[in-house]
């Protein structure tokens, strides 16, 4: 402590800047007024450290104790302000660009569900035989939200079913003593890979057949995700009741999802006339019919393929 500091502590200090120090100490940087150069001989003089901080305020060093120095050092104030502005900029950048990759407003339509809808849809996935009207209601050119029409596709059920499938697979492997946490990641990525392959294959065949449908990609992902519900049911029954239970439930769910897919896709892929049940001749419609049958038949196959190794 040099004498100028002690003298300055005695006089009323005129400070031009606020200080958040906890311990009243005189500033060692408050040099002798007749001194032209900064005193860099002592370790406390952090004037050069402040100089390198962004903003270059020429700020004097503060207290000597390290803990208080971290909290009260104006450099850290600047760093905090800079960091938070950087975070705000990053968030703005993400918000601006997220719409280019993920259409958030379109996705919100698929998540506008409520409990009653989910209950009815799950019932429909397991027992679609008595449902009569499969047409989605429209409201001024836009399809009505899933909340209001049980026929509309949604993404809540497929997403939850996918995650539940991964966890149930982990549980099944755990009961067979084959569990390790990275297996969860492996199951998840392999199921996701199969889903991607399926979506791409169907999109490719729709393109080759040159079918004009209003089946969007997200709709397709939603429809293909409904089979996970049956898979979960099958695996759970297999865990509780062994192979017999697994085959029974899986067989039932395979039939249901086959019928469900045919009835739903028929309205989307086939032209209006054929959808109403009037048989229309022509290679085009036959091709579309075959495509619908192929997509629907692929579902039970995949359901079996992705679950048989989980039940022993």
């Amino acid at each position, binding site marked *: 402590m040099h004498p100028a500091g002690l003298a300055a502590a005695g006089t009323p200090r005129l*400070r031009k800047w606020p200080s*958040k120090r906890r311990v009243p100490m005189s500033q060692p940087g408050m040099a*002798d*007024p007749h*001194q032209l150069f900064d005193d860099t001989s002592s370790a406390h003089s952090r004037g050069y450290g402040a100089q390198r901080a962004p903003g270059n305020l020429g700020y004097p060093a503060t207290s000597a104790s390290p803990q208080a120095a971290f909290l009260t050092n104006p450099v850290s104030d600047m760093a905090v302000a800079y960091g938070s502005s950087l975070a705000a900029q990053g968030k703005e950048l993400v918000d601006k660009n997220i719409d280019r990759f993920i259409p958030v407003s379109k996705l919100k339509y698929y*998540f506008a569900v409520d*409990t009653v809808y989910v209950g009815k849809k799950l019932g429909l996935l397991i027992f679609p035989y008595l449902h009569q009207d499969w047409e989605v209601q429209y409201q001024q050119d836009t399809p009505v939200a899933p909340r209001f029409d049980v026929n509309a596709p949604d993404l809540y059920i497929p997403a939850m079913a996918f995650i539940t499938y991964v966890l149930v697979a982990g549980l099944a492997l755990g009961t067979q003593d084959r569990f390790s946490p990275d297996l969860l990641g492996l199951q998840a990525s392999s199921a996701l890979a199969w889903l991607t392959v399926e979506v791409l294959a169907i999109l490719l065949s729709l393109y080759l057949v040159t079918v004009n449908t209003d089946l969007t990609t997200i709709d397709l992902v939603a429809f293909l995700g409904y089979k996970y519900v049956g898979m979960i049911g099958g695996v759970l029954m297999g865990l509780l009741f062994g192979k017999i239970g697994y085959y029974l439930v899986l067989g039932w769910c395979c039939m249901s999802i086959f019928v469900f897919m045919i009835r739903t896709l028929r309205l989307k892929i086939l032209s209006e006339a054929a959808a109403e049940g009037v048989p229309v001749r022509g290679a085009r419609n036959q091709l579309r019919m075959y495509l619908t049958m192929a997509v629907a038949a692929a579902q039970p196959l995949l359901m079996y393929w992705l679950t048989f190794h989980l039940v022993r």
Partner: protein
Amino acid sequence: MMQPQQPYTGQIYQPTQTYTPTTSQPFYGNNFEDEPPLLEELGINFDHIWQKTLTVLHPLKVADGSIMNETDLAGPMVFCLAFGATLLLAGKIQFGYVYGISAIGCLGMFCLLNLMSMTGVSFGCVASVLGYCLLPMILLSSFAVIFSLQGMIGVLLTAGIIGWCSFSASKIFISALAMEGQQLLVAYPCALLYGVFALISVF
């Protein structure tokens, strides 16, 4: 002579600039006594933490929508560490899994709630709610220290505690985001998340 009250403290080669406070911190005055207490500055309000804890612990009490307006992560941080500590007492050193699963779970819930609700929600709010509702899970893992949870009683207890956690979390989310008719839909992913935590505790 130069004014003795304003010494030259600038650098030789740079012009000295006067520091004008641009941050929103209030000017606390020159005196040590005027500065606010440390906890208030750090934003840790014990009374609020206690209120939120009570809301979690009474699953049937109606939640107040405004309690989640200030996202405070101090309480959840304490609960996560306590959970890890009780797991440690049972011999499982799995802080990494707790951290990873809570990060992924919070991210997933954040995306889901933003897509499902009319108003958006911030990540801090989601993390705060999910962290507070982890409290009953700490009870489960402290049980696991003494008794093994792999019998029928253990299964029932685990199911009950998962239900309790997810019910509280969904109740707070529903009241804070004003989503009607979706409580079970919000409770299900919370149940999945807490189920994974329970898996760590049990096995």
